[in-house]
């Protein structure tokens, strides 16, 4: 979400410290995923003053059958930085979806999105990542 380890750690610690204090006071909210909501808003707050990614026309390619092998060649941190560079709320959608812990209804709730918006963000994200992968690891084209 932040693309910077130090900031991520600060947000992480602040979120958990606040949660521990609320637990000690017996004021834990009953709503599900409140901790993730809280963490998300802290992330957005932390990046508010940063340079925001511009809305650029990014190359998009159809997801290729060979994408899995291209992704395996990626460094995990490169992927993390690629996701964090996406504009929010697409960034939130990609981060939550690929954590592989939430189903789409939970992501809709957490990211405060509608189904068609989440669908567009994920679909565009895949196509953009595929274009980046193609640029990074060019495939031999069949002639």
């Amino acid at each position, binding site marked *: 979400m932040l693309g910077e*380890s130090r900031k991520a*750690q600060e947000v*992480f*610690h602040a979120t*958990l410290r606040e*949660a*521990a204090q609320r*637990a*000690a006071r*017996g004021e*834990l909210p009953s709503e599900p995923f409140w901790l993730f909501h809280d963490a998300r808003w802290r992330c957005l707050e932390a990046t508010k003053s940063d340079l925001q990614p511009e809305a650029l026309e990014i190359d998009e390619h159809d*997801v*290729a*059958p060979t*994408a*899995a092998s291209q*992704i*395996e060649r*990626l460094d*995990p*941190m490169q*992927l*993390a930085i690629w996701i964090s560079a996406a504009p929010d709320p697409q960034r939130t959608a990609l981060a939550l*979806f*690929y*954590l*592989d812990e939430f*189903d*789409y*209804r939970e*992501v809709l709730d957490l990211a405060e999105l509608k*189904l*068609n918006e*989440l*669908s*567009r963000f*994920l*679909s565009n994200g*895949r196509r953009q*990542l*595929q274009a980046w992968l193609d640029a990074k690891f060019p495939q031999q084209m069949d002639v």
Partner: protein
Amino acid sequence: MKLLSSIRRQRSLLNCAPISARQSADRSMRSAISRADGSVEFTNQQNFDRAVARLVRLIPIPAESAEWFSEKDLVPTSRLPWKKMVHNPAVLAISIAVAVIAGVFVFNFLSRLNDFPGSATARKLLGVAASTRPVMLDPVNADAGTLSDLFFMKHGLEHYDVPAEFADFGTIGCRVFEDDESRRIAQIWVSEKRMQFFLFPAERDSKTGVVLRFPGWRYVHQEGWTGVVTEHSGVCFMAALRGHDKDFEPYISKSADK
């Protein structure tokens, strides 16, 4: 229009399809997946998503953050205050159920505590007393104590004697009938407090046939009726009236064993 919107929604759902099978999916998602299952586009998407998810899991977690997920509880488990627990519907329902079961158990236990040989028959006869009308009995104008001879002479019932405590009451009527176990029961209606007397065979040991005796007077209760029972010479005597134990106090001796 509706078809177009349905296709769009299915397309949207497919774009959000769960990465792994262990994730729960609602009905509409399952339906969308089953329609797209096997299509090249969807297969590519799933392979793509799984590969990304595998890579995400490899993103290193800083040691300082990993410490938070050590064996210690992140947030200490707070014990529910007992007042909150009591207001929990599940706890409340279980408590009520347990209380009802305990109540029934105690009621049955107390009922059985006063049981004695013949108490079941006595309770049945209290039911008979409640439903008896004077016209059902043969009119007799004599003291209750003198009916022993009538029962012996006319019905061959030996030791069907009314105890001394109730022997002097004037009789309105009497009869002899058989209960559902073919035991012969003598019933006497007296004018005093509209009491009814019953004489019936005492309970016997099913193996040895020996009379199961019990000392003094015992009380039984059934639907507002109270009976006081004693056994003598293998025959039980019960005086019954609509009322309470204290209604019998003037009649039975102070040695009555409650």
